[in-house]
C-alpha cells in the first residue's frame, strides 16, 4: 500500500486527540469500536461519510494533546489511507508511524487542497496530486525501512518480520 487515493476531509489547526477520539470511548481498545467514534467531536458526520482510502488534510500541530495511540488507530480503522498536515504533534507523529498510518508534512498541499477534492499520494516519491485541480506537491518521501514498516502494519509487525528473516 505505497499509494493512496481518496476524497479529502479538511480540518484546521491543532486538531487534538480528544476530538479525534474522545476519552469517553477509551474504555475499549477494539479498533472497530474506536473507528465508530472517530472525529466525533469535531465532525459528527465524518463516520457516516468516510470511505476506504479517504484522506485527512489539516493545518498545523495535528494530533496535539494526549499520547493515546487510540487516535491514529481510530483514523486508520475508519478507512483513512493518509493524513497530510503542515506539522504534527510529536507523540501523534510517532504513534501514527508505529501503527502503520502514513502521514506526510506538506504545508503547500495543506494550503491548496480543499474539502472534497480527490487526492492521490505516492509514498515512495512523496508526490501529492490534487486530482480535482491538477496541482502537484512534493513532500519528503518515506525511506525504504519506513515503507516496509507501514506495509507490515506498524512497528510490531515490522519487528516480527525482521525476526522471521533472522
Amino acid at each position, binding site marked *: 500500500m505505497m499509494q493512496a487515493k481518496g476524497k479529502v476531509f479538511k480540518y484546521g489547526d*491543532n486538531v*487534538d486527540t*480528544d*476530538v479525534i477520539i*474522545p*476519552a*469517553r470511548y*477509551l*474504555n*475499549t*481498545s477494539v479498533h472497530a469500536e474506536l473507528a465508530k467514534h472517530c472525529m466525533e*467531536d*469535531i465532525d459528527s458526520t465524518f463516520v457516516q461519510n468516510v470511505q476506504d482510502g479517504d484522506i485527512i488534510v489539516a493545518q*498545523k*500541530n495535528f494530533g*496535539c*494533546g*494526549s*499520547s*493515546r*495511540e*487510540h487516535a*491514529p*488507530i481510530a483514523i486508520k480503522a475508519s478507512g483513512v489511507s493518509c493524513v497530510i498536515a503542515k*506539522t504534527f*504533534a*510529536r*507523540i501523534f507523529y*510517532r*504513534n501514527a508511524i*508505529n*501503527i502503520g498510518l502514513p502521514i506526510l508534512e506538506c504545508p503547500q498541499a495543506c494550503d491548496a487542497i480543499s474539502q472534497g477534492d480527490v487526492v492521490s499520494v505516492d509514498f515512495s516519491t512523496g508526490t501529492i496530486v490534487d486530482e480535482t485541480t491538477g496541482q502537484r506537491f512534493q513532500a519528503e518521501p518515506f525511506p525504504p525501512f519506513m515503507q516496509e514498516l507501514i506495509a507490515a502494519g*506498524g*512497528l*510490531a*509487525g515490522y*519487528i*516480527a518480520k525482521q*525476526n522471521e528473516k533472522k
Partner: protein
Amino acid sequence: MGMTMTQKILAAHAGLPSVRAGQLIMADLDLVLGNDITAPVAIGEFDKFGCEKVFDRDKVALVPDHFTPNKDIKAAEQCKCMRSFAHSQEITNYFEIGQMGVEHALLPEKGLVGAGDLVIGADSHTCTYGALGAFSTGVGSTDMACGMATGKAWFKVPSAIRFHLTGKPGRHVGGKDVILHIIGMIGVDGALYQSMEFEGPGVASLSMDDRFTIANMAIEAGAKNGIFPVDSQTLAYLKEHCPKEPKVYEADSDAEYDRTIEIDLGSIRPTVAFPHLPENTKVIDDVGEVKIDQVVIGSCTNGRISDLRVAADILKGHSVAPWVRCIVIPATQKIWKQAMDEGLFTIFIDAGAIVSTPTCGPCLGGHMGILGAGERAVSTTNRNFVGRMGHVESEVYLASPAVAAASAITGYIADPEKIGK
C-alpha cells in the same frame, strides 16, 4: 559545541560522548510507564513480539489511575488486562487501588524517578519528571511495548528553548500561572519537537510542586520534555523519596538554544486559559464575568499537597456558591492521608465541597464530574479542548488551585485576592 541538559542525559543513555540536535539515537531506559488506558494496547503489541518477559520487572511501572475505581464494565476489563499482565510478569511497581495515585504524582513520591534518569511513559504528561532533573517524555503504546520488551527506545535529539527565570512569584501566583503564562506566550505548538529548559535565579523561588506543575504542562506547548536544573531543593526532595544516587547533569555554558525567553516571575499575574486551547490565556484582571457550574481541584498537574493547602486556605470559613459543584481530588493516597491529617478535609466539607479518592477521572472526561451541554468548569487540570471534560458544548477554564477555590466561592471566575478572610 556544548550540550543542553537534555542532550547530556540522552548522550549518557546512548553511551555516546556527545549528541547534537537532530541526531537519531538508541537509548537505555530507566523506567517505562503505562496506565489502564494505554497499557492494554501496549500489552497487545508486546504479545505480538513473541517476547516472554519484560526487560526488567523493576523498571516497568503500571498504574490504574484513569478510569479507576473502575467506572464501568469495559474499564474493569482493561484494568483486569493490566493487572493480570503485572502479575504474570511479576512487575514490582504495579499499584493496586489502595496504593494507587495519579501516576505523575505517584512515581516521584514512590521514588521511582531520580535525577538524570531517562523515562518514557505511555501518557503525554510523563514530561512531569523533568522537575527532578530527569529526561522524561510521553510516547504511545507501541513505543511502551518496545520499551518493556527491550529496555530501549529511539529518539531524535531535540533542540531547546531556554527559559531564563528571574524574580519571585507574587501572592496567589504559583507554578500553574507560570506555565499558563508561558503557553499563552509561545502557543500550543510553540515548543514543538523541542525541549523547554528552565534555568536562572528564579528557579530557586519555585517549590518542587511548582516545578512538577510547570514540567507537567510542557506538552501543552508541544514540547518533547521540560526540564529543571538540580538544586538543593531537588536534592532534598530526592533524599526524602528516592533511594537512587542522583546523577546531576548541567547544561554546558556554550550549549546552543534555538532561542532564549526571559521570564520575570514577579510580573506574572494569576492566569486562566479560556476554551478551547491552553494558549487562550487571560490574566485574572481581564477575565470579565464568567459564571461557572463546577470546580475541579486535582490531577497530575495540581493535585499535590501544596495545591490542596492553597485551596483550603482560601475556602476556609467560606461556602461554595449554591450553583457550583466543587470536587477536590487528592492525587495519591499519601497526599489524601496528609490532607486529612492536616484538617483540610474539614475545611472542604464545611465549605460544601466533596473529596474524591485519587483518579484522573474528570480531567479527561472519564468519570467523577462530567459536564453537560453548556456547562462551564474552572479546573486545575491541563487541557481544555472541545469536549475534554464532557459534552462537546461544555467549557473548561484552566487555572491554579487558588483561582479555582476563589471561583468556587463566588460562582464566577474569581481573583483569590478579592476573597476576604
